[in-house]
C-alpha cells in the first residue's frame, strides 16, 4: 500500500524550494489551484504546464518521480477523459459509429480535464516532496492563526493533523500486515470476489482500530510525561521566518494567475 503511495513523502534534495517558508508554499499552492481552474484554453494550460515544469526542475527531484506520483490516478483520469468525450458535443466529428460520434470539442474538453488534473496532482506532490509533514503542519498553523478569534484553535488543529500525519503511515503498514496475515491463511484480497473483499476489509477494522487506540494511549502517556498540556505556553524551536525569497515565490504565482486569466480573455 505504502509502496505505491509516493505522494505525501518528503524527498530531501536540499533545493531552494525545500528551504522556502511552508506558508509561502501553501499560499502558492492555493494560487496555483486557482490558476488551474481558471485555465480554459490550450495556451493557458500549456503555459501553466511549462511554468510547473520549471518549478519542478527547481526542486532537483527527477520529473519522472512526479509522473509516478500521479500514476495511481491514471484510471480516474482515463474515466474523466471518456466521460468528457461522451458528454461534450460540438466542433467536427472525429469518429462515428452508428448513432454515436466523437466530437473534437469533446476530445478537447477531455484532454483539458486530464491535463488539469495531472497538473494539480503533480503540484500537490511537489508540496509534499519538498516540505516535511511537520513543517507543513507548522505552516498550516501559522496560516490559521488569524482565525483564532473566530473560535478555531490553530494549536489544537495542528496537533491533530500532526499526529494524523505521524501515524497514518504506521497504521497503513499495520493494515497491510493484517492483510498479509489474512492472505497467508487463504483469504488473498487479490483472488477474492468483490463481496468477499468487502467482508475481509471490514474484518480489518477491529484490529486496526484497537491498535490505533493502543497507539493513542501510548502517545498520550509519552506526551504527558514530557510535560505537555494543551494550551500551556510553549516556545518554538524552528519558528517560521518569512524572507524576501518567499515574497518573490508567492509573487511569481500571482503573476502566473494573472497570466492565465489574461490569456483566457484574449
Amino acid at each position: 500500500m505504502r509502496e505505491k503511495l509516493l505522494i505525501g513523502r518528503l524527498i530531501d534534495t536540499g533545493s531552494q524550494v525545500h528551504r522556502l517558508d511552508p506558508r509561502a508554499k501553501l499560499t502558492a499552492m492555493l494560487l496555483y489551484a486557482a490558476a488551474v481552474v481558471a485555465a480554459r484554453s490550450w495556451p493557458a494550460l500549456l503555459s501553466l504546464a511549462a511554468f510547473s515544469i520549471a518549478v519542478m526542475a527547481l526542486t532537483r527531484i527527477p520529473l519522472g518521480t512526479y509522473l509516478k506520483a500521479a500514476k495511481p490516478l491514471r484510471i480516474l483520469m482515463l474515466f474523466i477523459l471518456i466521460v468528457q468525450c461522451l458528454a461534450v458535443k460540438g466542433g467536427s466529428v472525429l469518429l462515428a459509429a452508428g448513432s454515436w460520434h466523437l466530437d473534437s470539442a469533446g476530445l478537447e474538453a477531455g484532454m483539458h480535464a486530464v491535463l488539469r488534473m495531472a497538473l494539480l496532482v503533480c503540484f500537490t506532490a511537489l508540496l509534499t516532496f519538498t516540505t516535511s509533514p511537520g513543517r507543513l503542519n507548522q505552516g498550516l498553523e501559522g496560516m490559521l492563526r488569524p482565525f483564532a478569534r473566530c473560535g478555531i484553535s490553530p494549536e489544537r488543529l495542528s496537533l491533530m493533523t500532526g499526529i494524523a500525519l505521524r501515524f497514518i503511515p504506521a497504521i497503513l503498514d499495520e493494515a497491510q500486515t493484517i492483510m498479509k496475515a489474512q492472505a497467508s491463511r487463504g483469504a488473498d484480497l487479490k483472488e477474492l470476489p468483490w463481496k468477499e473483499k468487502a467482508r475481509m476489509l471490514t474484518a480489518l477494522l477491529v484490529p486496526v482500530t484497537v491498535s490505533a487506540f493502543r497507539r493513542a494511549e501510548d502517545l498520550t502517556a509519552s506526551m504527558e510525561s514530557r510535560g505537555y498540556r494543551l494550551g500551556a505556553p510553549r516556545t518554538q524551536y524552528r519558528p517560521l521566518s518569512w524572507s524576501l525569497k518567499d515574497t518573490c515565490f508567492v509573487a511569481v504565482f500571482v503573476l502566473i494567475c494573472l497570466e492565465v486569466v489574461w490569456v483566457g480573455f484574449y
Partner: protein
Amino acid sequence: MGIQLEHVSYTYDARSPLRQTALRDVELDLAEGALTGIAGSSGSGKSTLLQLLNGILLPTEGSVKVLDVRLNAGEKLPKLAPLRKRVGLVFQFPEQQLFARTLEEDLVFGPLNFGASPEEAAASARKALEAMGLEESLLGRHPLQLSGGQRRKAAIASVLAMEPDILVLDEPGATLDQVSRTELIRLLHRLCKEEGKTVIIVTHRLDELLPYADRWIIMHDGRPVFQGAARGLVDTAAKLPDYGLSVPLSIRCWHELETAYGLQAEEPCLSPAALAERAMQLMEADARKELNLCVKSC
C-alpha cells in the same frame, strides 16, 4: 523437496527513488522435517525472507521453490492457495494476526478458506488448540481478551489449524517473559520432532534456540552469511559480532572446553545440563588418566 532459493533478490519500492533492497542474490536450501533457526540483526532481511516462503512477497529476481511450487521473478503466478495451505506463516505480533470476533472463528478461518467443511474445520481447530496447550474454554473469548502468552499461542494455533507441512514463525518469543519463551520453543520443537513438521523460526536470540535447532541460517545485509548445523556455527562464532549478533554464552563455554581438552569436531553440547555433563565426563577421563599414570610410575 523442501525449500530452495536461487539467486533471489527482493527490492521494496523497486521503481521509485525510495527503493530499498532487502535481499540480494540469496542462495538458500532449507531442509524438510528440520527445525531451522534464522538469525540476524534488524534490517538484515529476515522478515522479507519469510514472506517469500509462501508467496506473500514475490522475488524481484531469481526463483523460489517451495515444496513442488516454483515462483519465478517476473513470471505469471500459479494459484497460491495450495502453497499457502502447506506453508503456515506466523507474523511477529499476534495482534496483527487475530482478526475474528472469537478465538474459535479465528482458528477455523484458515481451514474454511482452504475448503474444509465446518465440522472438519472445528476438529482441526480443537486439535491445534490442544497442540499449543490452550484450554477449550478460551474458544469463546475475543482474541484480544487473552493474555500475552495465550495470544501468541493462539496466533500459532490459528496457523496450525490449517495443518501446514511447514510452519514459519517471525520472532515468536518477542515481548514474552523468559518462562513463556522457553515453553514456546519446547512446544515448537515437539511439533517438529513428533509431528514431523518443518519449523522455521526467525529469532535474534541465538542462545535460546541453540539447544533445539537442527540447522542455522545467519542473515546479514540481505544475504545469508552462514548456513549449516550448530557445529559449523560454533566454528564461525567469532564472526557473529560482525553480523550484529553477540556470541552466545553456551558457545563461548564450549570453546573453553574445546581448547582445554583439545576436542576436535565434536558435536557441541549447548544446553547447561549437557555442557555440565560433558565437562564432568572429560574431567573424570582426565582424572582416570592421571591415576593410571600415577599407578604406572609407582
